[in-house]
């Protein structure tokens, strides 16, 4: 066996054992349990060791068909005879999504050139696997806590399981913990259909002994008021928090093997509670407005005499413990008042000793415009006392207020306008009539309709114009126009003023351009044979070409003939040229 083969064999063996070739780096993975039922969770524990300071981190393995969640990491450092060794233990939760044998690939770590990988593992997911016991609400899953002495649990309690409609039920959500709770505790109140809820203050903390074990306890109190009768359910409340969990070091013989603290997120649900809600006894006294609890009524009038036009304010105060926010204010009425109005209402709540209490005030103002007596009628308040299981009521005395004439002896006058502006006088003539709705009148509907029609017509006209502009025959016909209106008219004018040579040259030029536009060919400055060929190629007939050439020849000759002989000829040739161009224009239009 050669040295190379020995080295290779050593490398293979060390890789299988999860140790790097140098022996400094090691990794070991194990899964427990290795056989689970669908939906259950297995734990993958990965231990990494390194003789040195650079301890590599282990990433979450990618396993097909498995949800991998990192649980936490504990680290340890030991120095022995000057040699530093670091180890870490990382926990992953594996939740398979389907059945079958799931291979867990080797986990690879590296420090510099040192590489180590764990052995491949398998996780069997089968319906035949023994199922773990479901976790008991309020406790951590088995294995995480010692039995009988849970480290952390929640409990919901109600001070009564039977209550009357609208009677307060005090609900307390408590979190018991023997481990340190890190940071804030997130709590979700229970679903309480059929109740309205009032918080009874911020969470409280304390310490209690449960089964001989001391726990730190947090409590969230709230008041529930049933608004329906029958068996009502207060759903589970949920608490999410982070606890400090102690993990024992993997190397108990290490000098510095102190336990590590790993944060762990915990979610706990309470059990639902059932409250039986009884209806209130029948035959409630008149004036009962739904108040349930223990109340008393106070009534106060701000004066027993007032001037006409001055308001007299009466205040009814209901105070006590019970469903203060939902009770109906007592009615306050008066006889002899010209006007009455609600000045204000207010509610004050207290939460002392976990009992919702407080008071409601209602202020009514009565104004008598005429002197005499203002009679404020007795105020009656009825409530149901759940402890006495009976209705109770309280009435105020009737109050008589003496109304004296005002200082002017007449009715109260309106105050002056703000800012000194005087109220404008009334009108004696009818004003404009109109409508108070904001809907469009018929005229504007007609305008919008006609504008829509016009817009459509404009769009159609624009479209037709654009199409015409794109037509080459139309463009040529338009180019022909100035030859007739400008060039030939100028030629005729020159011929009339004794300049036939110039006139003939100008007419010849216009005729050349016109023929070119008619047959869509450039013939200006081209020799006669080429011109004839070009015109023929563009569809001009032999007779047409001959007529054109004859005209060109005539105009050419006039341009170079003696002046005294060419004046009449020029006029005649120009007229012939005009006729030809007008014919071309007609042909282009058709």
């Amino acid at each position, binding site marked *: 066996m050669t040295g190379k083969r020995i080295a290779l064999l050593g490398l293979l063996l060390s890789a299988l054992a999860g140790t790097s070739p140098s022996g400094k780096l090691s990794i070991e993975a194990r899964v427990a349990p290795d056989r689970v039922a669908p939906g259950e969770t297995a734990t993958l524990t990965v231990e990494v060791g390194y003789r040195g300071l650079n301890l590599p981190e282990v990433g979450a393995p990618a396993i097909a068909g498995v949800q991998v969640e990192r649980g936490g990491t504990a680290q340890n450092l030991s120095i022995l005879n000057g040699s530093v060794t670091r180890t870490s233990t990382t926990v992953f939760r594996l939740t398979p999504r389907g059945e079958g044998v799931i291979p867990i690939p080797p986990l690879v770590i590296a420090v510099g050139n040192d590489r180590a990988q764990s052995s491949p593992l398998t996780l069997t997911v089968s319906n035949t696997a023994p199922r773990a016991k479901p976790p008991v609400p309020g406790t951590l899953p088995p294995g995480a806590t010692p039995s009988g002495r849970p480290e952390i649990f929640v409990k919901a309690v109600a001070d009564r399981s039977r209550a009357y409609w609208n009677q307060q039920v005090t609900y307390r959500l408590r979190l018991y913990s023997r481990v340190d709770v890190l940071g804030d505790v997130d709590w979700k109140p229970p679903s309480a259909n059929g109740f309205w809820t009032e918080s009874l203050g911020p969470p409280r903390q304390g310490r209690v002994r449960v089964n001989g074990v001391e726990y730190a306890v947090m409590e969230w109190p709230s008041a529930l008021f049933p608004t329906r009768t029958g068996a009502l359910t207060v759903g589970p409340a949920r608490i999410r928090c982070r606890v400090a969990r102690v993990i024992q070091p993997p190397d108990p013989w290490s000098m510095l093997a102190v336990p590590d603290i790993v944060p762990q997120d915990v979610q706990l649900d309470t059990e639902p509670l059932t409250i039986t809600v009884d209806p209130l006894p029948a035959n409630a006294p008149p004036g009962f407005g739904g108040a349930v609890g223990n109340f008393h009524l106070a009534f106060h009038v701000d004066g027993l005499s007032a001037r006409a036009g001055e308001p007299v304010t009466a205040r009814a105060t209901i105070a006590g413990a019970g469903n203060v926010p939902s009770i109906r204010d007592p009615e306050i009425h008066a006889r002899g008042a010209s006007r009455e109005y609600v000045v204000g209402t207010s509610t004050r709540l207290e939460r002392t000793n976990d009992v919702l209490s407080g008071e409601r005030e209602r202020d009514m103002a009565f104004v008598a415009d005429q002197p005499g007596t203002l009679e404020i009628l007795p105020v009656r308040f009825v409530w149901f006392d759940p402890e006495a299981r009976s209705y109770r009521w309280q009435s105020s005395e009737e109050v008589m207020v003496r109304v004296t004439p005002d200082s002017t002896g007449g009715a109260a006058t309106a*105050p002056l*306008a*703000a800012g000194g502006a005087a109220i404008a006088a009334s*009108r004696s003539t009818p004003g404009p009539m109109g*409508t108070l709705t*904001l809907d469009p009148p018929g005229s504007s509907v007609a305008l919008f309709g006609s504008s829509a029609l*016009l817009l459509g017509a*404009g769009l159609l006209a624009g479209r037709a114009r654009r199409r015409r502009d794109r037509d080459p025959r139309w463009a040529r016909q338009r180019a022909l126009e100035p030859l007739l209106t400008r060039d030939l008219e100028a030629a005729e004018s020159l011929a009339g003023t004794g300049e036939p040579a110039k006139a003939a040259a100008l007419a010849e030029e216009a005729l050349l351009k016109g023929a070119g536009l008619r047959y869509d060919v450039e013939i200006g400055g081209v020799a006669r044979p080429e011109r004839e060929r070009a015109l023929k190629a563009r569809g001009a007939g032999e007779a047409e070409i001959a007529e054109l050439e004859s005209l060109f020849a005539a105009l050419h000759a006039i341009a170079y003939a003696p002046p005294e002989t060419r004046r009449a000829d020029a006029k005649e040739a120009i007229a012939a040229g005009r006729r030809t161009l007008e014919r071309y224009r007609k042909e282009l239009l058709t």
Partner: protein
Amino acid sequence: MSRIAALFLLALLATPAAAKTAPDAAALYNRGSDALRRGDLGPAVAQLLAAHRIDPRARDIRTNLAIARSRVEEREGGDQTSTRIPSALALSAPESWNVAGALAAMGALLLVLAASRRGLLILGGSVFAVGALFGIGLLLRAREEVLHPSAVVVAPMLEVLPAPEERPVSPYLLGAGEEVRLGATRGDLVQIRVGGNTIGWARRSGLWRVDEAPRYTASSGSK
């Protein structure tokens, strides 16, 4: 040309002959002013708002409406020291609609003419767009008025409470003369909206709709 256009606009702006049953701005104004002198702020604001809708440029209506509003603010503890009179540059709803329609029609006409004169294209398009946008704005305003009509609190103090099935809270109080919008109705209750938000339910009898102001007389009221 400009004279013809001006005449055309004037003809369009002229409010069409109102039917005999159409409310009279002067009658509404007189009722509102009487209520204002009595110190009855709710009916005063409601009647003057209705009068202002018909005749928004009338100085006396604008003045008294501003006084009524400032008194409402004063009573609510506002520190307003001067009366802000609404602008005279205002159009009634039919006038606004007619202006918008006229602008749209003129723009469309210019667009038709632009088929032969290219220079009119941008002008016509702009005028039409202004008219159309103005019209859309008016349409949205009219739709809001139909869905959530304007109303004025006429009760001296109106309690706005949650719906009976909602969690009870302290009532929201509105004073006479406060302008709100109404929502759905349920029995004697109507939903109250302020600034686009629903604040609760109140008795219908404590409110007057502005578009129904002519129905109410001096003897109408709320306690």
